[in-house]
């Protein structure tokens, strides 16, 4: 498992967008996703610093990404369709 957290989060974003049937992701959601990748990287560094074994670190990445994907899907499905210029 590589440690390109941006890539992981982008994959989660793309998957959620597909599931939500959305083609254009709102800018604020994209910004939040970038910030999430940074948080994920910090979490992994802190897990290792606390002596958590690699198997659990990998499991944590996987669970946190699944959690993010679920939350993102909810957020995308809740986007209003009435706000248009």
């Amino acid at each position, binding site marked *: 498992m590589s440690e390109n957290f941006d890539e992981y989060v982008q994959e989660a974003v793309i998957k959620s967008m597909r599931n939500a049937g959305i083609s254009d992701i709102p800018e604020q959601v994209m910004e939040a996703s970038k910030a999430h990748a940074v948080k994920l990287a910090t979490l992994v560094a802190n897990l290792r610093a606390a*002596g*958590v074994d690699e198997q659990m670190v990998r499991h944590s990445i996987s*669970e946190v990404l699944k959690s993010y994907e679920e939350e993102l899907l909810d*957020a995308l499905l809740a986007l*209003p369709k009435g706000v248009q210029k």
Partner: protein
Amino acid sequence: MNDTHIGAPKTDDEFGRQRALDAMNVVDTPKAPEFERITKLVQSIFGAPVVAVSLIDRRRQWFKSIQGLDVKETTRDVAFCDHTIRHSQCFKVEDATKDPLFANNPLVTGEPFIRSYLGAPLKTEDGYMLGALCVIDYEPRSFTKQQEQMLMSFADVVMGEMELRRSAAIDELTRLPNRRAFNDCLLDLAANPDASLVFMDIDHFKKINDTYGHPAGDVVLKQLAGVLASICGPETIACRIGGEEFGIVLRGKDAEQPVAFAERLRKAISEQAIDEIEKTKVTASFGVAKAKADEPMNEWQERADKALYRSKHDGRDRVTAAS
């Protein structure tokens, strides 16, 4: 007292904190699998019997997710997490029975007999501590600095997910809450006779866009959103609910005289001078409806909408109160 309180307290604005929590629209929402995943993961990593995402509401702590205890909320006065939100870093209690602050706490002297606690604040981007991600044990326990950092990281992840949900309820252009937030707010307040609803529609907005272009139209929307924000009281929520439509849910002082509120807004808007449209006068029309006890939400909205239609029909730049 052998616990260590890390970091400087940063919570002297309880009103702002509560407002930030309310804006998050998360309290009293159903359990969500995404937060269950994280609390289960933290439980496994810490080997702790109880892990929770606790939000500190007005007089209670409410659990968005909790592992190891079958409880939805407690009163705020007994909540360990109420202490965590007074710090910007982790708050820990290694043996509650020896800590003067907690030795007589009913959650320590009685069920579930908490002995140790580690909480990481759930901090918004604005710096408000809404609650905590906490680890609870029934035995005395020490926590290392590294474990504290680890919990802080998990708390950041939880908060990031909450912020994500909130960001989907904000209109990108005006930064006002959007229709989703508006609908949530109406659901909360329908049939509350102390609330009022104002619909506002910018007059001839299409003409502004056609004449000066969409970027200029965007400036108009942003400027009027600023006017709205400056006029609304602390309990009133103004939302952009459509292209040039705004919904304002009045509570508190604003709700006592909703027509006067709308008139103030109408006047303030008509006094705006916007360079991007060569200072062309911008006006708006308003429909106002006070909520009635036992009235369904859709009927409340319908009355405000009809009043707005009447304002448009009668010549625009005016306020009409619903019957």
